[in-house]
């Protein structure tokens, strides 16, 4: 494998090169650390780089490779979004509140990848506490889109998406509460999978909205997403909401094609606010899948329109409860000189949280307050039921729904100031979180040199079907072979 191209190889290709002894795990790690040192000053996708731990893990992985016991992730470097706990490695959530926080334990996904032989490169930037759609609310720095450094990478997993798109990490793990894996994957021209709620353990993911949060992979190919899912999916005694069914191999059946697959096209996702060029590319992709043997029909989801409003009641409400733990006593930002506990709490939360986080805590506190609870929180939960039922009915008729991932391509840094306008970015991705269903975004073309994402949605635990359809489309198109210029 040619040296200058190492960083754009797929996980599978890197693994093959490691097994063939064409490159060592240490050399592969070093190639990435060097590229991060050379380029990440411009992109800003890492909050921390971990060469010591990375080299240690690479050495251990090499022994496993040499002993003939390597799996497909052994020795392949990766990044983790900085809201995933890493024992002994600062985990900030891109917030001043956790600037110096060193978790005393690993997230389940962190230890799962370590057991699979992964080599940690560092921690990816995000919107503060994963609240945002542009990575501009990070307390430390914005991340830039490798396709155009004047534009955002999306968010909240903007660091992971920019790293993977820019060849600064072979893959990364993100979290998706309302689109935070799929929207940045779309903006950066890569693959992003939000699994079914409960399929991947959330233990050690710093909580934002617990009934919506889900961890998933950001990769450059669909097969890589399947390989990472094999390592991270499965039940976990440390997450009481994890689904207790045995893990499956997501690479089995990946290449079986889409002949006879029933695809639904949802008119509500092509309406007002969607860039007509994105709508056109989405329809073109559906046509291509039809050409590969899929059966396409129209399915209406009228309640999807309300999903955004449901999301902006439920997620702030859950966030206001989850973030109540930041009291400056046990860990995190603290103002110990305050005269009493109340003053200390106020000063800690005022100084530790940024504006977007405060806005959501206030909104959530309002929605949960006595007198408003029924009108907002309970009402949103009831509409959530309607949205879920609507998806259930749709998946009686079709196997996969195909929509655009985002209404627009990546916008410029600083371009969107109004939070309500920013929220509209999530309009196509939020319904999956509300219903708990899986969704994957894959690249389906470009507009003026900026990537466009195609979203595939499926019934609960239909990841294998989504990956199969995504793989068929990917292999029939050139998009995954295109990368931004350095």
């Amino acid at each position, binding site marked *: 494998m040619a040296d200058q191209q190492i960083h754009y190889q797929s996980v599978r290709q890197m693994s093959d090169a490691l097994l063939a002894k064409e490159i060592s795990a240490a050399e592969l790690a070093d190639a990435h650390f060097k590229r991060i040192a050379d380029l990440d000053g411009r992109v800003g996708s890492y909050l921390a780089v971990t060469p010591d731990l990375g080299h240690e893990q690479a050495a251990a992985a090499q022994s496993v490779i040499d002993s003939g016991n390597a799996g497909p992730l052994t020795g392949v470097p990766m990044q983790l979004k900085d809201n995933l706990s890493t024992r002994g490695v600062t985990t900030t959530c891109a917030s001043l509140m956790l600037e110096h926080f060193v978790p005393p334990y690993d997230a389940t996904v962190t230890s799962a990848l370590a057991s699979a032989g992964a080599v940690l490169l560092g921690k990816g930037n995000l919107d503060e506490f994963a609240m945002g759609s542009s990575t501009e609310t990070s307390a430390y720095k914005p991340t830039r889109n490798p396709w155009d450094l004047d534009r955002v990478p999306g968010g909240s997993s903007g660091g992971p998406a920019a790293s993977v798109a820019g060849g600064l990490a072979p893959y990364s793990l993100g979290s998706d509460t309302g689109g935070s894996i799929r929207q940045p994957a779309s903006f950066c021209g890569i693959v992003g999978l939000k699994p079914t709620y*409960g399929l991947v353990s959330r233990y050690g993911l710093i909580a934002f909205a617990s009934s919506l949060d889900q961890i998933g992979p950001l990769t450059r190919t669909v097969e890589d997403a399947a390989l990472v899912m094999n390592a991270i999916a499965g039940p976990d005694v440390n997450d*009481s909401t994890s689904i207790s069914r045995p893990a499956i191999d997501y690479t089995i059946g990946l290449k079986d094609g889409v002949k006879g697959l029933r695809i639904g096209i949802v008119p509500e996702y092509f309406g007002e606010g969607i860039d007509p060029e994105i709508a056109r590319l989405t329809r073109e992709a559906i046509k291509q899948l039809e050409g590969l043997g899929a059966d396409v029909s129209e399915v209406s989801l009228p309640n999807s329109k309300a999903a955004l409003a449901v999301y902006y009641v439920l997620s702030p409400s859950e966030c206001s409860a989850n973030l109540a733990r930041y009291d*400056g006593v046990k860990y995190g930002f603290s103002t110990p000189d305050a005269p009493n506990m109340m003053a200390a709490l106020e000063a800690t939360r005022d100084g530790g949280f940024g504006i977007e986080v405060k806005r959501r805590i*206030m909104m959530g506190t309002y929605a949960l307050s006595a007198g408003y609870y029924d009108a907002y929180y309970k009402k949103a939960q009831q509409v959530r039921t309607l949205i879920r039922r609507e998806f259930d009915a749709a998946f009686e008729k079709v196997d996969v729904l195909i929509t655009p991932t985002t209404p627009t391509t990546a916008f410029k840094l600083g371009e969107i100031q109004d*939070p309500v306008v920013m929220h509209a970015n999530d309009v196509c991705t939020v319904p999956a979180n509300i219903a*708990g*269903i899986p969704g994957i975004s894959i690249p389906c073309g470009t507009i003026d040199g900026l990537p466009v994402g195609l979203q595939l949605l499926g019934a609960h635990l239909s990841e294998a079907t989504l990956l199969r359809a995504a793989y068929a489309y990917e292999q029939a198109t050139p998009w995954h072979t295109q990368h931004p210029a350095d």
Partner: protein
Amino acid sequence: MAGLIAEVSVLQNIDTSGVEPTGHAVEEVHSVMRDDISSPALTVADVLLNAPRREGDYFRVPAVMDNGEG
């Protein structure tokens, strides 16, 4: 805040009479009790690792009840 509240007020136009609220959307997700067997937990040193202020094996906090040192 007014803009945010206006954004979510469209919910009021949806008829939800008789509709049960959904907390978690996935039917297979339900609270499970693990077996009541003790297993290793964090050490005291680990728990106090990130304490902004500590005294011995305790978190130290400002006075809770009055303005004096507590």
